[in-house]
């Protein structure tokens, strides 16, 4: 769907992107991660043709990005706003027409979406009279109204209460089911794990991580097992850092250190009854923090 090759962008005082390659597969939710100032917004702005890259290419459906592709993309920026004095209806018609819909097309679509998100009764209200959550819904509609093939969402859940966040999450999943490709840029790792199929991480202008959630997690496996034993047969070695809980279970974790999991399990059986033997899988949050710290001191 989207292919980015050796993308570079520098501002007068710093580099925003350095040789970034990315492939966003069709119909997936692609998590774009990275701390503040990493270059995500620059990348998103280049895809949206708001700014131009210094070098490198962006291809959409195998063709170089052109002004006509604006219609294919829906963009919800992190910092967003609406005209306060305009009515919900006028506003949505305006934004959909700017995306290239004609008048009657726009009217029909706006009507459908207002009903869908249950704000049809508010269409003649000005944005300044709406609650924040309501305005966010209008904003979301304005992003998807022209049925983009590629949806770029920058922190889509900020400002939503849990109920509305759930509604938006379901809308995103529905759009994905219809074949829309979604780029999701967020700091909320729990929504990344929940929604994303594929992630890439940018830090200090470079891509430092790329792959499906499973691949990424696999590559960050610390080769450690968390273990729980009861009914000890002999004393555990001092250096195992054992925690003792109320159920009189002994909890600790051990690295494989070249052993296979089965070998380790066999060893453990000599110490007591194995109640739990589970490989440690890092959360996306842990990977995120680990990666940012690891590149901090380069």
């Amino acid at each position, binding site marked *: 769907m989207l292919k980015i090759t050796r993308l570079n962008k520098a501002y007068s005082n710093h580099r925003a992107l350095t040789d970034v390659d990315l492939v966003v597969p069709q119909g997936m939710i692609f998590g774009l991660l990275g701390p503040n100032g990493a270059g995500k917004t620059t990348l998103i702005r280049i895809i949206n043709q*708001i*700014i131009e890259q210094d070098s490198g290419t962006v291809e959409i459906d195998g063709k170089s990005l052109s002004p006509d592709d604006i219609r294919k993309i829906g963009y919800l*920026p992190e910092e*967003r706003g609406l*005209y306060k*004095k305009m009515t919900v209806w006028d506003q949505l018609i*305006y934004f959909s027409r*700017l995306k290239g819909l004609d008048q009657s097309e726009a009217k029909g679509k706006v009507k459908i979406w207002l009903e869908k998100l249950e704000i049809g009764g508010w269409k003649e209200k000005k944005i300044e009279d709406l609650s924040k959550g309501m305005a966010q819904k209008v904003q979301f509609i304005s992003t998807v109204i022209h049925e983009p093939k590629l949806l770029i969402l920058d922190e889509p859940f900020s400002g939503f209460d849990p109920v509305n966040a759930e509604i938006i999450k379901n809308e995103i999943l529905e759009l994905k089911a219809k074949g829309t490709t979604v780029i999701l840029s967020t700091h909320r790792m729990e929504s990344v794990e929940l929604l994303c199929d594929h992630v890439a991480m940018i830090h200090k202008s470079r891509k430092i991580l790329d792959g499906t959630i499973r691949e990424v997690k696999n590559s960050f496996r610390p080769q450690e097992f968390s273990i729980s034993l009861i009914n000890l047969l002999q004393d555990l070695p001092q250096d195992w850092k054992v925690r003792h809980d109320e159920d009189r279970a002994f909890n600790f974790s051990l690295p494989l250190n070249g052993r296979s999991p089965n070998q380790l399990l066999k060893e453990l059986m000599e110490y007591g009854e194995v109640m739990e033997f589970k490989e440690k899988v890092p959360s996306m949050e842990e990977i995120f923090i680990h990666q940012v710290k690891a590149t901090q001191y380069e």
Partner: protein
Amino acid sequence: MNKIFLVIQREYLARVKKKSFLIATLLTPLIFPAIMGIFVWIAVSERENQSLRIIEVIDETGLFFMESSEQYAFTSSINDPEEAKKMVQEGERYGFLYIPKMEISNPKGIQFFGIENPSMSLMSYLESALKRKIEDQRLYDKGIDPTVLKEIRTQVSIQSVTLGESGEEKINDATVNYAIGFLAGILIYIFIFVYGNQIMQGVIEEKSSRIVEILVSSLKPFQLMLGKIVGIGAVGLTQFLIWVVLIGTLTTLVTGVLGMQMPQQQAMELANPEMAQATPDSSELADILMVIQGIDFVAIVVNFIIYFLGGYLLYGALFAAVGSAVDAPSDAQQFMFPITIPLIVAYMGLFVFVLQEPNSTTSFWLSMVPLTSPIAMMGRISYGVPFWELALSIGLLVLGFLFTTWLAGKIYRIGILMHGTKPTYKILWKWIRSSQ
């Protein structure tokens, strides 16, 4: 192109639909005459209420007799200047005019004493009265009889007539031309400021509410800027045209009413200008009405629209650039300076040079340089401007706004996406030079 039109449409409708627009548009043509009416009323009632001012005159030559007017009375009750000064100090007299012994061929040493500074009109009244007396006296000394002098003295007022290319004659009046130039110039000045500010506010609104990020993902920043400038300009034009219609209707009504009240003869003169020319002693009102009828309002309105649009586009782009560079209206002040200065220069130039001497070199250049021409040319237009000068000035103005629009576009496209940094002129210069 289609997208620019959408932006124009939004900017236009968002403003024209506002109640404040309707009120301002309908009330302004009424407010201006109302304010002028109030001034006239105050001036008239002040004159009526003014007590007669008594001025003591000591004339050691014995030649001058000062005629009293409605405002000033002249007396000669004493002969001692010191005593006269005392009377002024004690408030018995408004002033004291002292004419010492002097050669009539070399009048020197005339003094006026007063507690406050005498008004300009009093001084010129005294000066012209004395001047006439001295001249009369000198003529008398050369042997001309005062009764002959009286017979000779005539009131002359020149009727200025310009000849058109095809020989048609047009009656002019410097005062009316002045008034038209004055009004048109000031109107353009106000329009540029009011609507330029609206552009700036609009840009800042879109920037600070972050709508702009969504907008520029749908269209180019330059399209957005141009659409906004043109849309708001259309609002200004709408307002102006409504005013023209309103004022035109009002004027027709007022002259209609006046025409009915005028004596039959004058009304006929109005209807038939040739007859009026034949009888030069027709009343002043009829003269002014005739002059107004002689003015080519269509040409003035058309030129006004051209220069309004040109000046508005030129400055509008700059206002947009300033709006894009700052985060809040309060930060805009530092960049307003280079916009305000040429406008004020044009405004001052209008009064100091253009309206005084419409065809002087300074007036010419003020009406050629695009930054000042929209205001300066308005001061000249009613006096008549050669076609080539108009064409050159308009051509330069077009080049001027193309340049400022290009310049503003460079600042705008970067400025609208910048938050939190307070730009300086150095940074703006960097934006202009950067290719991206």
